């Protein structure tokens, strides 16, 4: 599904530069559920952003579903993001003046889908996250957990091959976090490949594989026994 070879990334800080990723090698198969862990500054978010084509690597290879991701034009990157990737952010990143349904339908709009079809599909995904009754509500009228579920519905709407989550439970309390994790696990059960960044051990343990980063290199990469989130809900 995804293959990364000797990935390097540094950010300029004043005159010097900060070397964030120092040669990452990573391979993820379809259907996996991987947690990327590390303390802040370890480069975990940078790695996720590069995988999500939100940021670009300085050097190294990145192949997504057989396609080399390199020197993309903005236009092409936009098409790839829309087609291959679904994003879930810590701060939800919903558009605040659009209601739940419109937010979920937005990636479909950029796919050029017809309005009617778009709304049907968006409603289907909202139903899937259990928020069909809240379709006409604005993000500010929803709770954090509900907002994250809208964001998940939006990430799923375009039917992406890979779901990327950046601290998906970072802004939520424990109970809500487990609810969201249970939902993500369910998606993985259905076959979605999921990659998430987290710094919480309990959340990481709910994945099937943990990759630990420290100072820009992979310290540890191991398969774990998945803890099911349902039992805590």
């Amino acid at each position, binding site marked *: 599904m995804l293959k990364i070879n000797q990935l390097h990334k540094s950010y300029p800080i004043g005159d010097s530069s900060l070397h964030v990723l120092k040669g990452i090698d990573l391979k993820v198969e379809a259907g996996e559920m991987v947690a990327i862990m590390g303390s802040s500054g370890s480069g975990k978010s940078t790695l996720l952003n590069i995988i999500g084509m939100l940021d670009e690597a300085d050097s190294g290879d990145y192949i997504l579903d057989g396609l080399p991701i390199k020197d993309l034009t903005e236009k092409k990157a*936009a098409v790839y993001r829309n*087609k291959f990737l679904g994003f879930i*952010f810590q701060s939800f*990143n919903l*558009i605040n*003046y659009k209601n739940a349904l419109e937010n979920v339908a*937005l990636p479909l709009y*950029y796919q050029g889908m017809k309005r009617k079809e778009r709304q049907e599909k968006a409603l289907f995904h909202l139903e899937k996250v259990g928020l069909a009754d809240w379709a006409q509500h604005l993000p500010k009228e929803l709770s954090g957990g509900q907002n994250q579920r809208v964001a998940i519905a939006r990430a799923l709407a375009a039917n992406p091959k890979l779901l990327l989550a950046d601290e998906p439970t970072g802004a939520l309390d424990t109970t809500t976090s487990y609810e969201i994790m249970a939902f993500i696990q369910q998606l993985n059960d259905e076959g979605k490949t999921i990659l998430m960044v987290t710094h919480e051990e309990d959340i990481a343990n709910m994945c099937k594989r943990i990759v630990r980063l420290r100072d820009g290199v992979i310290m540890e990469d191991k398969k774990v026994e998945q803890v099911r989130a349902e039992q805590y809900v």
Partner: protein
Amino acid sequence: MFDLDLWREIFQSINKNRTRSLLSGFTVAFAILLFTILFGIANGLKNTFAEAFGDDANNSIFIRSGNTTKAHKGLQAGRRIQFKNEDFDYIKDDSGNKVEFITARIYRNATASYKNEQNNYSLRAVHPDHQFLEKTKIKDGRYINQNDITNKTKVVVIGKKIEEELFLRTTALGKYINLSGIPYKVVGTFTDDGGDWEERLIYMPISTAQHIYGNNDYIDQINLTYNPEMNHDEALSFGFSLERKLKERFSVARNDQRAIRVGNMAEGTKAVSQMTTGLTFIILVIGFGTLIAGIVGISNIMIFIVKERTKEIGIRKALGASPRSIVSIILIESILITAIAGYVGLLIGMGVIEAIGPSLKEYFIKDPGVSRSLVIGATITLIIAGSIAGYLPAKKASKIKPIVALRND
């Protein structure tokens, strides 16, 4: 291509961000409103000015005669100088294309009557050119023409006031008016910006008057306008040379101030034209000033809007929006708001001017107003300025990495 979904996105964005939309709309509307009002008032001032000096042609030269005050070439002082048709022809032929319009005048008073109404009026016997010299506006019928001069026809053109007073507000055209016992056909009626006095005049062909009043070829006065393409100095020297030639023709001393008098409006028009130029300049400064203030305002707001939407742009990019769609959504929104607001400002501005215009007359502001095309031009300028001001940051925002835009709070 008309993309319904794009427009839906734009209208939603405008509708859901009302404060922002109203703020930028207000700036534009206010700029256009100020522009319209200031420009309108300045135009009103100019109108007042033009009216004060614009009743009669301001490139006129008047030639009058009187009695000599100095003995010259063996002729005694106190001699009466009388212009005749030959003098009129002489000036006309001698001046060639330096003269635009020329007419002779004979002044008489006449008792005019129609049916039971009767009154005294001033009579002017003139050539056809007189209409343009005096800026007489024909209401019905026609003015004196060359045919009248040649055939000495008994026709008159009368002012609106005479029509009201003698014909009791019925149409005078085609009826016969009695002047000191002789009936004249009314071939035209006129109005004149010069006021009531001018509208109580009777115009008659000069040849007819010469025939009836004394059967001679005397002329009381000659009026002409010089070619408007002449500059101020040329006009002055034309007037001087005319005076010199006439004095020679009538054997009048050069320094005789009474015998032949040539009054040249060019002596006064320089000040008038300088003032008009100054006024036009002030109007332009006011117009550009308000426009620039508007441009600065809308530019600031556009930069602010793009800044405010940076995060939204990041989200849209993460979901697969192309840079082009980002730029177009921001640009079309701003153009739409500016255009609508500009139009509203224009309507309000014109409404205000319409409403307060009449009451401003006592402050020397007459018929204030602006041409619609000028205000539309100003609005388009603002739209273009707003688009450029919006395009640059929108383009920049569409280029920043989504991750940077997303981090923006």
